[in-house]
């Protein structure tokens, strides 16, 4: 067993013994995201040093890496073999690690068309709250042996254990990619995105902002050319950097209000009537709302719920509002029970999702 893993186990055992929680940290690029640790006293468990590719077989479409591996390094190696993480995870800093990417479960512009982080997770190696070294899933595409723990821990904000290694399905880089832009109103854009999505077109991202609809086409040259003719619009030369700015939130919109809300809702929902600026992604299924601090949390949450989804406070002062959408009483009980099974002493990242556990 590698020294680092022994060290992690030791830290877990000590945390249980001393009843002092652990704050699991990769590159510290997404510390702003999620709830604050509920405990004042905690020890930090740094996983960034536990890095490296464990196995990569381009022809198997699978990569296994240690969770401290920087996303940028992983993506560089994949691109050398003309492959990619198809869920386009946001980095938010060059130090972002694979572990943080899996734990936060955030996906980028391609998500609505290719899948989310959890869709590409094939297996994990992790330490639970007993310090047990566990493997779930594997390095193969199809695996239904046992419960799907690997996907279950994805997006759990580190509350269920310390992720050590992750196996991911990777996809080939598209041989061609272009971005089209067209001017229209929001309601028309929502209609258009749905019309296109019901046809077999190689769309890989959509974004609506400020009366402009942006569409990215990715795939074989023949497919991209044919689709371009069907869609119309103007080709945007700086397409690549535009999508990068959406993925990494460097586009000015994301910092234009005091708070940024993320509303994940049914894609066909008409324009949301909430004060503040909005930016749409994922064919309408993701609505970012930049608002000021005074906007009523309840109004946002009830609109998101009415639209079949939920709202997350992404950026902004969190003391006066909850970050993640509240759960029903039954669901909260179930969450607490599951958390307790993985982490009986409650030492992993308490409060990073909900203050209750």
């Amino acid at each position, binding site marked *: 067993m590698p020294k680092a893993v022994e060290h992690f186990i030791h830290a877990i055992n000590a945390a249980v013994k001393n009843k002092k929680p652990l704050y699991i940290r990769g590159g510290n690029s997404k510390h702003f995201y999620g709830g604050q640790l509920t405990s004042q006293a905690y020890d930090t468990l740094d996983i960034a040093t536990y890095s*490296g*590719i464990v196995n990569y077989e381009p022809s198997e479409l699978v990569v296994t890496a240690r969770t401290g591996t920087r996303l940028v390094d992983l993506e560089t190696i994949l691109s050398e073999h003309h492959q990619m993480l198809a869920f386009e995870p946001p980095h938010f800093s060059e130090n972002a690690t694979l572990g943080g990417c899996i734990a936060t479960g955030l996906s980028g512009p391609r998500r609505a068309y290719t899948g989310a982080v959890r869709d590409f997770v094939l297996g994990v190696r992790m330490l639970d709250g007993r310090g047990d070294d566990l*493997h779930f899933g594997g390095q193969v*595409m199809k695996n239904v042996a046992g419960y*799907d723990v690997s996907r279950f821990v994805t997006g759990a904000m580190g509350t269920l254990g310390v992720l050590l290694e992750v196996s991911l399905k990777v996809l080939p880089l598209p041989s061609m990619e272009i971005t089209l832009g067209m001017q229209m109103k929001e309601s028309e854009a929502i209609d258009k995105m749905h019309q296109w999505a019901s046809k077999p077109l190689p769309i890989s991202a959509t974004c609506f902002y400020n009366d402009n609809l942006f569409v990215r086409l990715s795939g074989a040259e023949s497919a991209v050319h044919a689709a371009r003719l069907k869609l119309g619009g103007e080709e945007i030369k700086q397409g690549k950097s535009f999508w990068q700015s959406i993925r990494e939130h460097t586009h000015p919109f994301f910092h234009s209000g005091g708070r940024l809300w993320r509303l994940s809702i049914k894609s066909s929902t008409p324009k949301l009537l909430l004060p503040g600026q909005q930016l749409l992604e994922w064919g309408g*299924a993701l609505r970012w709302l930049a608002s000021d601090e005074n906007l009523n949390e309840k109004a946002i949450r009830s609109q998101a719920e009415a639209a079949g989804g939920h709202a997350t406070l992404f950026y902004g002062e969190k003391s006066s509002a909850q970050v993640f959408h509240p759960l029903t009483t039954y669901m909260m009980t179930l969450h607490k029970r599951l958390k307790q099974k993985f982490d009986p002493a409650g030492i992993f990242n308490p409060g990073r999702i909900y203050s209750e556990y």
Partner: protein
Amino acid sequence: MSRFELISKLCSFLPHNAVLYETEDLKPYECDGLSAYRQTPMIVALPQTEEEVIKILQICHATKTPVVARGAGTGLSGGALPHNEGILLSLAKLKHILEIDPVARTARVQPGVRNLAISEAAAPYGLYYAPDPSSQIACTIGGNVAENSGGVHCLKYGLTVHNILKLRVLTVEGQAIEIGSSALDSPGYDLLALMTGSEGLLGIIAEITVKLLPKPEKAQLVMAAFNDVQKAADAVANIISAGIIPAGMEMMDKITIHAVEDFLHAGYDLDAAAILLCEADGMTEEVADEIQKISTIMQDSGAIKISISRDESERLRFWAGRKAAFPAAGRVSPDYYCMDGTIPRKRLAQVLRDIETLSAEYGLRCLNVFHAGDGNLHPLILYDANQPGELEKTEAFGARILEICIEAGGTITGEHGVGVEKLDQMCLQFKSAERNLFHAIKQAFDPDGLLNPGKAIPSLHRCAELGAMHVHRGEDKFPTIPRF
């Protein structure tokens, strides 16, 4: 509570023909698609509404009666094998398609709806439901969710877990909860992933919202014959390495080719050691492009014969042989036993050689059909259940195949589930701490262990008995090669 009391309780709200308890009525339910395992249930309940299912669960919960859910009973691992002191809960009558939303491209359906019926209902909108297990004309979507079913197109379009948005689940207490949502993600833990493939152990699925995809403009198939399995396996790797994700990629070995050709006369090359079927779909222009590339790669990989489907009927004819592999096996042998391991593709040729050696050792023939794109192997062991000891020999052969899959870095089940069939192999694939966590997850949902007890996760006792054979996946199996 006595059996009689339970029957009268059920009959108090269910029509009389929806509660079965006479021996001859129970008979049809004593097994699922894995007929080697049989067990007569105490009672079969056939509710027609969610309210009825809830009442049944409430009674079972109050009386601590085991509940085994069943859809169409096409499962191949004994997941719906009844419990002799339990109720077999058939969900086959909950078969309504509740809503199709052509704009958001979703369908909300009851668990007893057949897989293919969803695509048929979506067809007028140019949409379909992508996962297509071979049994799709019969199998139900509830069963698909319970098993996380795949199909021949899942390398490109994903498994059930990738194609569902929301579940309405009834807990063991009979409470309805929503898991997932109409959005692409949900707050809290990913219970949708946990529920999918949980083999009826965590809850009863009462409603499913699936994603629908636009039908591809065109699909076309390349059929290539190889005189060497290794070359066919290399062709698969070369296609993937060239950046192509085929819509489907299937391989058959020599013995399968012969069995199928005798049966169907599909025009397969009888000299071939392996036949590879590779499908491209999408826009017309891109399909033409991709088919050209695939053919060239097949050629360069040493194919001895290449045929490209000229039209839809020819494409279906090429597929027919592959789809007839099971019936063809049934024709050349009184019984067959279907295995379901998944391996890293690069180990294919070696694993097939190992299976051949075992086949000679056990004196049993074995056909190999293979979802080559995703490494899912379906060896069909041919046997005769009327020969004393032959089923036992077959099971021992099958167990060895699964062990080979584990050793190759794969898994004991790619899409058929563990059920009762692969409990022993679960002891090999998972360490006790991992199995303990599985039991703990089950407990979080079902503390009394009433839902499909004895399936999917082996008891500690069972694994302890197997102890002597226990081999762990050691770290040395996956050499660590830090790259930076």
